[in-house]
């Protein structure tokens, strides 16, 4: 009986498998007609929101860039501002009034015309509705008025001169769709196909499973070379790499050094080591506060002392971290702006550079009144042992190994470290609430430095409800003054000077120690896909760009033109089903025979 049930189960499984493979053929993302050119991308990050007004995580904004064109764009080769929806612009003598000319003949993916009114609508919505300003409010908060005098003209008047006018990272949405949305904060933006203006149109999405985007035939730069772009979610990076090796996906990003090394020399796998645009740092909580300067969180009060923070910074050897934890696939951290943006990058001149020096750090702490106790741990000025919690994100590959080094170094200057690795959700909650002493941080910078500089300003401190976008609760008058100066400075060279002064100030304050600018390590199937538009080119990234060039220029590799992989899923499904049915039949037959034998 048991065996017969097993056999029936096997048949049912086989049928279900067969059913499943035909079902996927009908609707969901794995099977296609043979002539479809599909690019499959493995992702391990979680998307928090696809509503462009709320989306601020790296994974979310990448979708925003694919789905919506911005007013201006960042050039693929060198990231200078180029035309987006606007093809021409000029600024009045007072540096306050900007006039943008909107390109002719563009349409949304539902064939409605794109006009200046859509642009004015988007910016005005962000000005009038605070929720709509959640993700990108910093770009428009200095706007006085935005008007559309005619179909092809947008006029933006700013209160003070604004340096970021050609780097407004704001997805422009269609007024005829969004004017019907009643509650921006609750709108998921998942009405497929999602009407957009970018190179791809979102047609299907399941949280933590997959996202499917189809080429937008009405895209004003021309239709992308591929027909479909799929993001397939993997729970861990090793699974994603195995998917790449088996050919389940065509592109994987954010590889670990061990994975990147392991993939070298594998057939049909091409590697891309790109200079990244992120900075990774160690945050030293100087005393978390809200925008009304109320203390929040439970950071160790001793860290308010800048001398202590400087000693900690001196005990961190960024070079070793880059060599060991990043396997050499990073640049050694110095100033706040990553070196890929060479114009704004600053590194301390020789006379200001502290360098890694445990002995000097020990001397500093001895002199500053942190005597060592009998157990080798220093005590703070209230007599309590100086033991700091170090918070890491268990979802970030570098945090755990880095924590081992930091613990060891700080131990050598008499500071105890209690490492706490927590899930990404809990990590960001603790970050916003200031519940940490030390924590690993990471920011992605844009070609225009304003956004990443803004996260160190008082204005970005969280409000009482915890809404804010502050890196480490910094609120420093000198930095504020410089920030205001740079955002009003339209001369790029002069602005770069101010931005460098700001980084020098951050280096003095040491609320964060920049450890590394990690390389972005990517791998793709060279037998399936080619032609990715790197940004910047050469040496740039495929994924996580300030643009969509990577996916936009991707095309099937010559060998894969007559895609063999398309019907393969179905074939395998049928083969598996046949084998299972045969096996089940065999079992039934054998079982009958055994029964007969036993009866005799």
């Amino acid at each position, binding site marked *: 009986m048991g065996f017969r049930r097993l056999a029936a189960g096997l048949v049912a499984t086989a049928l279900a498998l067969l059913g499943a493979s035909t079902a996927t053929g009908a609707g969901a993302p794995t099977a296609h007609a043979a002539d479809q050119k599909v690019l499959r991308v493995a992702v391990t990050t979680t998307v928090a929101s696809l509503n462009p007004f709320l989306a601020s995580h790296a994974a979310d904004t990448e979708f925003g860039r694919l789905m919506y064109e911005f007013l201006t764009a960042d050039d693929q080769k060198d990231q200078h501002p180029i035309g987006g929806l606007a093809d021409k612009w000029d600024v009045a003598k007072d540096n306050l009034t900007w006039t943008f000319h909107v390109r002719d003949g563009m349409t949304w993916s539902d064939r409605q015309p794109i006009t200046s009114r859509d642009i004015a609508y988007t910016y005005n919505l962000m000005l009038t509705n605070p929720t709509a300003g959640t993700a990108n409010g910093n770009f428009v908060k200095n706007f006085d008025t935005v008007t559309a005098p005619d179909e092809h003209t947008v006029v933006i008047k700013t209160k003070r001169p604004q340096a970021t006018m050609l780097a407004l990272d704001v997805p422009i949405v269609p007024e005829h769709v969004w004017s019907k949305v009643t509650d921006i904060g609750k709108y998921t933006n998942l009405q497929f196909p999602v009407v957009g203006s970018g190179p791809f149109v979102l047609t299907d999405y399941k949280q933590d499973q997959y996202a499917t985007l189809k080429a937008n035939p009405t895209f004003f730069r021309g239709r992308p070379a591929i027909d479909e772009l799929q993001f397939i979610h993997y729970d861990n990076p090793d699974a994603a790499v195995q998917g790449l090796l088996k050919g389940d996906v065509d592109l994987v990003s954010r590889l670990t050094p061990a994975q990147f090394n392991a993939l070298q020399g594998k057939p049909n796998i091409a590697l891309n080591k790109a200079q990244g645009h992120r900075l990774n740092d160690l945050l030293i909580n100087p005393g978390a506060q809200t925008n009304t300067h109320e203390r929040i969180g439970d950071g160790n009060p001793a860290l308010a002392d800048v001398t202590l923070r400087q000693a900690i910074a001196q005990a961190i050897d960024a070079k070793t971290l880059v060599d060991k934890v990043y396997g050499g696939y990073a640049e050694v951290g110095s100033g706040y702006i990553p070196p890929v943006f060479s114009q704004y990058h600053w590194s301390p001149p020789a006379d200001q550079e502290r360098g890694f020096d445990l002995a000097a750090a020990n001397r500093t702490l001895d002199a500053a009144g942190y005597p060592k106790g009998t157990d080798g741990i220093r005590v703070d000025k209230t007599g309590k042992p100086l033991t700091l919690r170090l918070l890491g994100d268990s979802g970030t590959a570098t945090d755990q190994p880095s924590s081992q080094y930091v613990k060891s170094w700080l131990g050598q200057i008499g500071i105890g470290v209690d490492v*706490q690795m927590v899930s990404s959700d809990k990590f960001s909650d603790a970050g916003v609430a200031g519940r940490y002493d030390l924590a690993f941080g990471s920011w992605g910078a844009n070609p225009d430095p304003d956004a990443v500089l803004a996260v160190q300003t008082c204005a970005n401190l969280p409000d009482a409800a915890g809404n804010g976008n502050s890196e480490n609760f910094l609120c420093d008058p000198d930095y504020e003054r410089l920030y205001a100066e740079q955002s009003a400075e339209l001369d790029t060279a002069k602005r770069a000077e101010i931005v460098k002064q700001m980084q020098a100030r951050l280096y003095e304050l040491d609320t964060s120690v920049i450890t590394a600018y990690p390389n972005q390590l990517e791998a793709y199937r060279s037998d399936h896909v080619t032609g990715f538009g790197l940004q910047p080119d050469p040496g740039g990234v495929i994924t996580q760009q300030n643009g969509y060039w990577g996916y936009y220029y991707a095309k099937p590799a010559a060998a894969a033109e007559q895609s063999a992989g398309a019907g393969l899923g179905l074939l395998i499904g049928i083969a598996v089903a046949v084998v299972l049915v045969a096996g089940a039949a065999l079992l039934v037959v054998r079982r009958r025979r055994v029964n007969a034998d036993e009866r005799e």
Partner: protein
Amino acid sequence: MSTPSPTAIAWQRRRAAVGRVWQEFLSDRGGLFGLAALSLIVALAVFAPLLSDASGLDPTHATGRPLEAPSGHFLLGTDNLGRSVLLQVWWGARISLLVGVLATLVSVGIGTLVGVAAAHFGGWTSAVLMRFTDFFLVLPSLVLAIALSTVLNRGIFAIVLAVGVTSWPSTARLVRAQTLAVESRPYIERAWALGAGHVHVIIRHVLPAVAALVFANTTLTVANSIIAESTLSFLGLGDPNAASWGEMLNAALGSGAVTYGAWWYLLPPGLAIALVVLAFMLAGRALETVLNPRLRER
């Protein structure tokens, strides 16, 4: 003079019983192997600070290259930070065993308390305690442990608590059954008749009678606790300050060791877990067979 005191007689009897148990245990080869393996592992773990240099665990003092294959210098190769895998597995035993044993103490402690109380007091106390036990019994313990270790502050003790609090119900059920059996015996009735109170009956009569079974159960629970600790640590819920075997596996997976093909980083902690659990299981099963009258008769 010639008649020994009652206490002396009791002790004599107990010594004889232990001797009998030991003799029977010796006849179980699997159990003996388990015990030998455990003694060796525990001795190695306890004396690790004397036999090896802990500074090799500090990445700033690591001498190897990342993910070096096994060689004469590093018998089990190196991890992603160039530290000896062998040394880490060795020192990991301390944490894994410590957490396993502590979690078991919590679990067996709660289980014994609830089991004895439920059987001894009976009535609605029993009803309430047993429904409470049933409630914990039907909850998927891994999910509960994950939830608990997420809510509690990170650290070894969070894991101990999470594992201990989720694994006691089966002990409670076992102890309750044994207590019921013991309490129905005439000598307990006699004790009642002589005016014994609850405390006297429980401490002098019930606990000694169930202790043997609890001990056998403890040995088996340690194995489960070690698995549970490794699972939680592997899932990234462990204490990164304490490098247990589960933590090692977690670090190995996070660093891409699978893709790299660094089997020497993945296999040793996994095999170590398997070996210790097997040893505890063999010893525990043998002990249970000896001590549990129902199993012995078969």
